[in-house]
């Protein structure tokens, strides 16, 4: 680690605050529109009307609501917690302000302060190519560097995307994740609002990351952002998403749908750091389609929440396509991280790599749920899956549910799973050099996460280490 990282780490550790003060605060907001609790065709119609959407989208929504209502709750994952969700109790749409800001000065003071505290404007200045900041259901601030606009890069919130590029959205929306894929994807499709729409024209390399930040502020809020990213032939883009919410006593729901389309020879990396408060249900469907010689990478970090169920997926549909999924999950007291990855090889010479790292502490539970599928035609394909679980304390739990469906025998499949404990001997070695036991444990945990952390932009690596430190102190929630 360089001194610069260390210095930032030092600075951050001076902050001496915990989740509750750093992310867990909530603003007394005067909402432009705060709907009623519960979901119905009226609510769906209202959302669509307020957004002035084309009729075809309204129809997709209404159909999705029917699918949602008819689909049973999944009978896997954590069914006990899933069955505790009270859908009637949730607000499905809240519009914080009437008009989106183009500069931070346009954003109301109390919301701006929130994003200030989260460090978004700072990061924007320093290293981002574009920023989108969503508060409850809608994006309240949006900007992109002019040079990128000139190159034809489109980075809008999804609502604006639909207004300005209805053809592209009509062509791709729901093609990677169909409405009836699962109950939560259907729910999202019915009430989606906000999220990001990105289109990168052929051959354009967006060298700096584009970032969206999703913030839930209100109690019992449901956030259903919808993201669609299309990299045209030979294009390259890195998108980063961060999420937080305040600490409330009752539950909120975050159920996003993210669709990525990587056309021939293109590259998409999607980095997420989710750090939800402990009363959030985080049920997200993320899937990518990689065409000929395209590369898709999911870098997916899951902290916080009560229950997370999320399995980023890559469908390798073109010859020579590559996929990589790197996922980490931290399950602390009373949390269940049911995370994993799916790769589907549907063309020859495709390759994929899944690396999953989980940490369970106290009575926390981390599950890896994975699917690796190789279709008949996917000759000469390669899959490698590596799952690593670290347990801290006697009550911590980790499970692995890997599924392999291999229909072609000219392929190479590697699977490795390990469960380890923070070893007494390692702790003794480090403490014998003067580190306190807590510091020693934190160092071991950070080391365990290193293969993930080193894939993050510097600022996020520092932030992630800081978050893990907070988790280790048990000061969250």
């Amino acid at each position, binding site marked *: *680690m360089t001194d610069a990282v*260390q210095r930032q780490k030092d600075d951050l550790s001076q902050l001496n605050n915990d989740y509750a003060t750093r992310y867990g605060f909530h603003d007394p907001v005067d909402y432009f529109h705060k709907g009623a609790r519960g979901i119905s065709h009226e609510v769906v119609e209202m959302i669509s009307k307020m957004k002035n959407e084309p009729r075809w989208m309204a129809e997709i929504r209404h159909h999705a609501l029917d699918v949602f209502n008819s689909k049973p709750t999944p009978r896997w994952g954590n069914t006990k917690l899933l069955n505790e969700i009270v859908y009637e109790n949730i607000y499905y749409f809240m519009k914080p302000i009437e008009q989106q800001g183009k500069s931070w000065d346009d954003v109301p003071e109390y919301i701006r302060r929130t994003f200030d505290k989260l460090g978004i404007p700072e990061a924007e200045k320093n290293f981002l190519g574009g920023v989108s900041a969503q508060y409850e259901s809608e994006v309240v601030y949006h900007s992109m560097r002019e040079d990128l606009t000139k190159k034809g890069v489109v980075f809008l919130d999804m609502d604006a995307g639909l207004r300005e590029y209805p053809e592209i959205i009509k062509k791709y929306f729901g093609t990677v994740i169909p409405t009836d894929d699962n109950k939560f994807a259907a729910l999202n499709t019915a009430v989606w609002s906000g999220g990001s729409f990105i289109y990168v024209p052929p051959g354009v390399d967006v060298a700096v990351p584009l970032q969206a930040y999703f913030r839930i502020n209100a109690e019992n809020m449901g956030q259903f952002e919808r993201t669609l990213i299309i990299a045209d032939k030979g294009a390259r883009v890195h998108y980063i998403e961060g999420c937080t919410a305040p600490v409330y006593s009752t539950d909120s729901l975050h159920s996003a749908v993210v669709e990525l389309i990587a056309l021939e020879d293109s590259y998409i990396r999607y980095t997420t750091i989710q750090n939800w408060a402990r009363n959030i249900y985080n049920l997200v469907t993320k899937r990518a389609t990689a065409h000929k010689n395209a590369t898709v990478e999911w870098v997916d970090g899951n902290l916080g929440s009560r229950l997370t169920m999320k399995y980023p997926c890559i469908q390798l549909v073109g010859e020579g396509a590559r996929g990589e999924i790197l996922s980490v999950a931290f399950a602390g007291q009373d949390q269940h991280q049911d995370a994993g990855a799916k790769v589907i090889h549907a063309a020859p010479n495709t390759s994929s790599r899944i690396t999953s790292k989980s940490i369970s502490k106290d009575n926390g539970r981390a599950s890896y749920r994975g699917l690796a599928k190789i279709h008949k035609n996917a000759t000469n394909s390669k899959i490698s899956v590596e799952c690593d679980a670290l347990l801290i304390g006697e009550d911590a739990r980790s499970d692995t549910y890997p599924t392999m469906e291999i229909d072609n025998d000219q392929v190479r499949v590697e699977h490795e799973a390990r469960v380890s404990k923070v070893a007494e001997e*390692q702790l*003794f070695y480090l403490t*014998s*050099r*003067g580190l306190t036991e807590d510091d020693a444990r934190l160092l071991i945990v950070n*080391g*365990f996460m290193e293969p993930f952390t080193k894939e993050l932009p510097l600022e996020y690596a520092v932030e992630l280490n800081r978050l893990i430190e907070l988790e280790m102190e048990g000061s969250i929630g």
Partner: protein
Amino acid sequence: MSDKKPLLSFNDVHVEVEGKEVVRGVTLTINAGETHAIMGPNGSGKSSLSQALMGHPSYAITRGEAFLKGESILDMDPDERSRAGLFLAFQYPLAIPGVTVANFMRSALQSHRGKDADMSDFRKLFKAEMNALGIDHVFATRYLNEGFSGGEKKRIEILQMAMLQPSVAILDETDSGLDIDALKTVAEGINRFHNDNNGILLVTHYQRLLNYVKPDYVHVMKAGHLVKSGGPELALELEDRGYDWVVGEEENQKVEV
């Protein structure tokens, strides 16, 4: 005699591991400026004594007392003992995946200096010590002991000692796994570290390190007892004649130094 300053002294120390007593009443005082060597056959309890002194939870000191610079260390945790000035170079250093040598070293030094202490000299210091020990700078960014050869691990142990500047360093089989050149560099490192204000306890099976690091006193350990003590010449005698001739008649004797 009276101007000798005891740094580490322990008296009638018994150590139990897995319910078995493996050190059975050992007494020794290391004064400032002194180098002691404990030699003995495999399984005689040398490492157990070293681990117990450093505070390993599995090696319990069931009887006796131990003092570092006049303060009892028995109620101290390993990190407190370290910060109080005790150091143990492990016979089998552990790998810590994902943690670079530099990052680890920095955290260790920071914990010695205090959380808010200035660390701006760290890089310079660290590089200088690596150079002195002939350690390639790439090791700074490698993960601690992961995939290191036996000799590399030992050098890194000595690097840690040099960085932390303890009052007393216990070096457990630091010579094992070293080729002759590495042995010389490591010995130089130990000699460079040693001065009138610190003490060294060399724990070793062979006397070859003692050709390069001259002990003031040599003690022989057998079956959990120090059975004989003498000057550096004792090491040579052991080299010639093995351990068998040293018999247990002096068992339990208090070693005078």
